[in-house]
């Protein structure tokens, strides 16, 4: 597969992270509400203890086996392999912020790594909690498409790897909460109107009642921020992948509609107040001189809402999406080229945000 943007596949860590992550592109169906879609499959090799009980040399064996299988597959042809041990803590954190690597894999002490397909549609985490965590990421609301990518990659790897599987329980995973399909399908949805109108608790409660899980934007047990909610399937046993994905899709569609109706209502009843909130947020981002990351994320939420509502003069969606990742501590320090104290980070972050927005204004020829 060739990358959609025509640029050559990243051959090094620097090349990979120098371009914005594909899932931030702001493209895809319902991109104004759904930031991204993710499908994760957990797999283990039959004859090796699970990662936390395996010796380092066994984990090295897993790395060899999995990277070998990836090399033989079409999906991971010309893929980039990064060994966690060869990256600095800051570089590993960059990958965590980019959602390519989990916090656990980001620890980096043991033989662990990731394989990233040239188009970044699919990647593999090796020796995380499970030997293999295959993940397909897509911008916007694309569950069926992301599943097709993950399913195909899994089939290809399955040709050369002996996965731990039992007829009764399915794919066997280190934690029994993932046993069965090993599937975690999730969508990251932006719900500012439901939050503003104080209807979010009701919506989230009903989501949980139908057996889905709600988390913050940064995965398991992360804080809710920027009015973003990650909704995913909770169970993996007794339902096929397709069933799980379809029921997530149905519920997500309902949430999207509820949010859209809330936005319409909000605009009808309080257009000026909404516009004021959006432009004040934009103004703060555009002219701030010191800003913590949480504030960036919350202000970006308001700007994102304005962009989604079609307010003229704001920046494109991908700029808001990218700011959310570029202003995280590791990205920020990498861009600065050295370590920064939290106070220095706030100053540098403000500069970066101003520059990004100025560049977007310049590009689109809009003046505020």
């Amino acid at each position, binding site marked *: 597969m060739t990358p959609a943007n025509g640029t050559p596949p990243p051959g090094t860590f620097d090349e990979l992270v120098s371009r914005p992550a594909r899932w931030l592109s702001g493209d895809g169906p319902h991109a104004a509400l759904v930031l991204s879609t993710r499908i994760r499959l957990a797999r*283990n090799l039959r004859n090796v203890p699970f990662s936390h009980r395996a010796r380092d040399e066994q984990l090295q064996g897993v790395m060899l086996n999995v990277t070998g299988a990836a090399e033989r597959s079409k999906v991971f042809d010309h893929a980039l392999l990064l060994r966690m041990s060869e990256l600095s803590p800051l570089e590993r954190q960059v990958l965590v912020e980019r959602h390519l690597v989990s916090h656990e894999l980001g620890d980096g002490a043991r033989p662990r790594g990731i394989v990233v397909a040239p188009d970044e549609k699919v990647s593999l985490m090796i020796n995380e909690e499970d030997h293999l965590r295959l993940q397909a990421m897509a911008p916007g609301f694309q569950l069926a498409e992301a599943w097709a990518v993950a399913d195909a990659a899994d089939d290809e790897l399955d040709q050369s790897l002996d996965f731990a599987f039992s007829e009764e329980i399915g794919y066997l995973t280190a934690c029994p909460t993932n046993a069965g*399909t090993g599937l975690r399908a999730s969508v990251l949805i932006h719900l500012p109107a439901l939050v503003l109108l104080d209807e979010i608790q009701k919506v989230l409660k009903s989501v949980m009642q139908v057996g889905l899980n709600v988390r913050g934007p940064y995965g398991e047990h992360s804080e809710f921020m920027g009015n973003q909610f990650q909704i995913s399937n909770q169970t993996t046993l007794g339902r096929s992948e397709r069933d799980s994905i379809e029921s997530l899709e149905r519920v997500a569609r309902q949430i999207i509609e509820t949010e859209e109706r809330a936005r319409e209502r909000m605009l009808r009843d309080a257009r000026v107040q909404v516009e004021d909130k959006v432009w004040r947020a934009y103004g703060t981002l555009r002219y701030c001189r010191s800003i913590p990351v949480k504030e960036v994320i919350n202000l970006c939420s308001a700007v994102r809402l304005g962009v989604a509502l079609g307010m003229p003069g704001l920046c494109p969606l991908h700029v808001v999406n990218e700011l959310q990742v570029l202003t995280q501590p590791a990205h920020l320090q990498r861009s600065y080229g050295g370590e920064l104290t939290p106070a220095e980070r706030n100053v540098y972050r403000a500069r970066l945000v101003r520059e990004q927005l100025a560049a977007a204004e310049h590009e689109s020829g809009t003046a505020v």
Partner: protein
Amino acid sequence: MLCQICGKNPATVHFTEIHDNKMSEIHVCEKCAEEKGLHASVKKQKFDIADLLAGMVDGMTTTEEERVGHVQCPRCGLPYSGFKETGRLGCAECYTAFQFQLRPLLRRIHGDTRHKGKRPTGDGEGVSRSRQIQRMHDELQRAVEREEFERAATLRDEIRRLEAEGRSERTAAEKQP
């Protein structure tokens, strides 16, 4: 909203927890989150599964609990009590070694104990080709729904090619003595 533990500071850390197979939310302040080891960056989260396990053991008498705890996986040597502590099994064989303990646990987590879903192909090209064809049929349907007719035509041709390939391989295999 105030912290649910100290009731003084504002709750800035929010968790979703599984208990008795029900989701519940916890809202706490940073300080209490760190003290209780709830902070994601401070400590890895194991308490959800640990809670489930604790709930299961509650109904057991001490002798039962001891007996169950001493069951050991013959392959990796993990005792059941080790699983109880970490919420992680040691190897694929643990699922067989602890099957009597795990079955009710899996039922509580998932509401079911039988896998329904994809399985490893494991038996070569024929199986993977038919799955590929199936997947392309699904993709074709989606392309038609979206009126992406050019893509649909490409998919249709590719499906025909794969089907023909499968037929000719089967014929060749039948002709072999």
